[in-house]
């Protein structure tokens, strides 16, 4: 909780690694939380997560048994919680790829302490996201049948000119690549786990997942390239995924959707919400898992700055949408942005969105706020809420008041909608807590590499004795 030593020279950078370390102390301190038994706090959180997961199972079973009529969707609000949650979760996943891939390409050293964590988050967020499009087909066991091109007797192919079909390819590619990238990065750390485990069973289990990794120089030579290329591929991939998600809306003619600013504004929003989610989980994790020496205030500050920048990009997107609605002279657009959103039945959600996404991140101009754990944590929660409200505003508010007043209809979610949403938070939390229990939350190998780099870099303060 303590703020960093602010009395130090402000021009001197905050350290990336705190304290004096050797390979061995890094190894032990970062693996410690895996070997240590689960504490009461972990079990309490896991219990809550499992209960929410139970709710998800009930809601899924009820949806499959009764059909998607149990959701609150109607005509004209044919897309509601399902797609809101899909876009929200996918966006959260994007910060993981940004941290692990884009910051790697930009050689940002601070990414090393948080990339494993963020990549795991990506993976679990995409799993949660994928549930919704599968469930909204009503019969997910037929989903592959409708979504994938395969030769059938009906001779019907998917509509390759539709962004919804592009989405199928984009999201499934994104999930696969994220999984491969995460596992590839994990293999050396699994070997470290195998070799520092005390019991034979654990050595066996981690040994199986480590695939017989022996740190061979011949392997490392190819490994570095495989890892770098996966990062290079993930970078345009993450941009393409959210661009295609935004096309789902932007190619239609609905006021509120029909806009060319959607792709960049969706990507910025995705990074914004993703960093907020990393922050929400990282702050308690570094506290309870003993990771403060690798996730320092420098990391927290940098993440806060990214949230500030992307928050302002999102704000710019909102301003532009409103400007174009006015400037185009299109009465439907004007009505959507200046009457329905601001004064309509869903207006509270719109104003909550403006508060959480535009006003709250401004607090990060202050260094005191950027280095105060409580402020960071509450702000990150509010940003997550704000980004959910943004998707609600875009989707439901636009749909429920379109061109013809006779088509207008209000929307309210049912208990199934709400349970599915809370349930995916439970699924995400369950997976994440299991990850924190069984796998090192920080990329141990990369921290060792970072320590050596810092030790040999004359511009940084010495970290640990040089070998």
């Amino acid at each position, binding site marked *: 909780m303590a703020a960093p030593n602010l009395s130090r020279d402000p021009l001197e950078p905050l350290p990336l690694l705190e304290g004096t370390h050797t390979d061995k102390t890094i190894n032990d301190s970062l693996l410690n939380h895996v070997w240590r038994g689960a504490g009461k706090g972990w079990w309490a959180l896991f219990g809550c997560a499992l209960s929410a997961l139970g709710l998800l199972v009930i809601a899924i079973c009820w949806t499959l048994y009764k059909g998607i009529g149990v959701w609150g969707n109607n005509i004209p609000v044919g897309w509601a919680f399902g797609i809101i949650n899909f876009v929200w979760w996918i966006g959260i996943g994007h910060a993981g790829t940004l941290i692990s891939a884009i910051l790697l390409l930009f050689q940002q050293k601070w990414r090393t302490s948080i990339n494993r964590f963020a990549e795991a988050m990506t993976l679990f967020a995409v799993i949660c996201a994928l549930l919704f499009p599968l469930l909204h087909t009503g019969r997910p066991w037929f989903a592959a049948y409708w979504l994938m091109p395969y030769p059938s007797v009906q001779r019907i192919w998917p509509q390759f000119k539709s962004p919804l079909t592009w989405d199928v390819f984009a999201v499934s590619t994104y999930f696969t690549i994220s999984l491969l990238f995460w596992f590839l990065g994990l293999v050396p750390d699994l070997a470290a786990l195998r070799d520092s485990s005390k019991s034979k069973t654990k050595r066996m289990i981690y040994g199986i997942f480590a695939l017989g990794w*022996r740190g061979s*120089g*011949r392997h490392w*030579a190819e490994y570095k390239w495989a890892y770098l290329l996966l990062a290079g591929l993930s970078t345009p991939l993450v941009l393409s995924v959210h661009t295609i998600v935004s096309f789902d809306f932007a190619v239609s003619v609905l006021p509120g959707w029909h806009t060319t600013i959607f792709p960049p504004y969706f990507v910025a929003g995705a990074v914004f919400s993703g960093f907020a989610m990393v922050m929400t989980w990282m702050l308690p994790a570094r506290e309870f898992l003993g990771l403060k020496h690798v996730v320092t205030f420098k990391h927290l500050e940098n993440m806060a700055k990214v949230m500030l920048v992307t928050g302002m990009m999102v704000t710019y997107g909102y301003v532009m949408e409103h400007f174009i609605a006015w400037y185009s002279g299109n009465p439907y657009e004007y009505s959507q942005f200046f009457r329905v959103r601001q004064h309509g039945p869903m207006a509270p959600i719109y104003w909550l969105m403006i508060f959480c996404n535009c006003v709250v991140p401004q607090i990060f101009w202050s260094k005191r706020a950027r280095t105060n754990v409580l402020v960071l944590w509450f702000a990150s929660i509010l940003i997550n809420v704000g980004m959910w409200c943004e998707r609600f505003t875009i989707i439901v508010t636009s749909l429920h008041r379109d061109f013809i007043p006779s088509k207008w209809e209000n929307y309210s979610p049912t208990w199934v909608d709400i349970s599915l949403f809370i349930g995916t938070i439970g699924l995400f939390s369950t997976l994440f807590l299991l990850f924190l229990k069984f796998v090192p939350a920080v990329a141990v190998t990369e921290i060792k590499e970072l320590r050596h780099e810092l030790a040999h870099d004359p511009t940084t303060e010495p970290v640990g004795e040089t070998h």
Partner: protein
Amino acid sequence: MSAGHDAHEDSGFVARRFVLAEFATPEGLLSGTKKVREAGYKDIDTHTPMPLHGLEEALGLGRPKIPLIVLCGAIAGMCIAYSLIYFCNVIDFPINVANRPMHSPPANIPITFELAVLLAGGSSFFGFFTLAKLPTPYHPVFESEDFARAAVDGYFLSIELPPDGDQDKAFAIAQSAGALSAELVTESER
């Protein structure tokens, strides 16, 4: 895994022998590796908890193969995706919508890109494990007790001895190259 892999008990199993030398520092390992290689040993490998800069030169490795494999994966993905869409939309089931063209390249870009990334990423991952011959649960170097530190904080050099090679000579070279300690590990028959 050449000699003893498919050998049965009576078929003349020849155990591979390695001299496993530990170095104190990564820099020491790099210069030591170079010296051992210059002394004429070809089957050498390093074992480190992290990738080291300059390892490729020290081991005398050629260009990495992964980039080419990934390029092939990307091109394959592009070709498969584009030709699939072309086949579906133009050849197998053309649908005339207001006389718009059957073959519309801009609409094909996203899926072509995604499949290129998918196959390129897949070939990077699976290409690496194929090149590295992993998973390999057993390797003679695991026979050493000390080797458990290779993934933690130990810097090792393994020298595979030729079947008739002299282990004492390898020990001497490892010592002169700056190794802290060296031991002989022998493949066990399975």
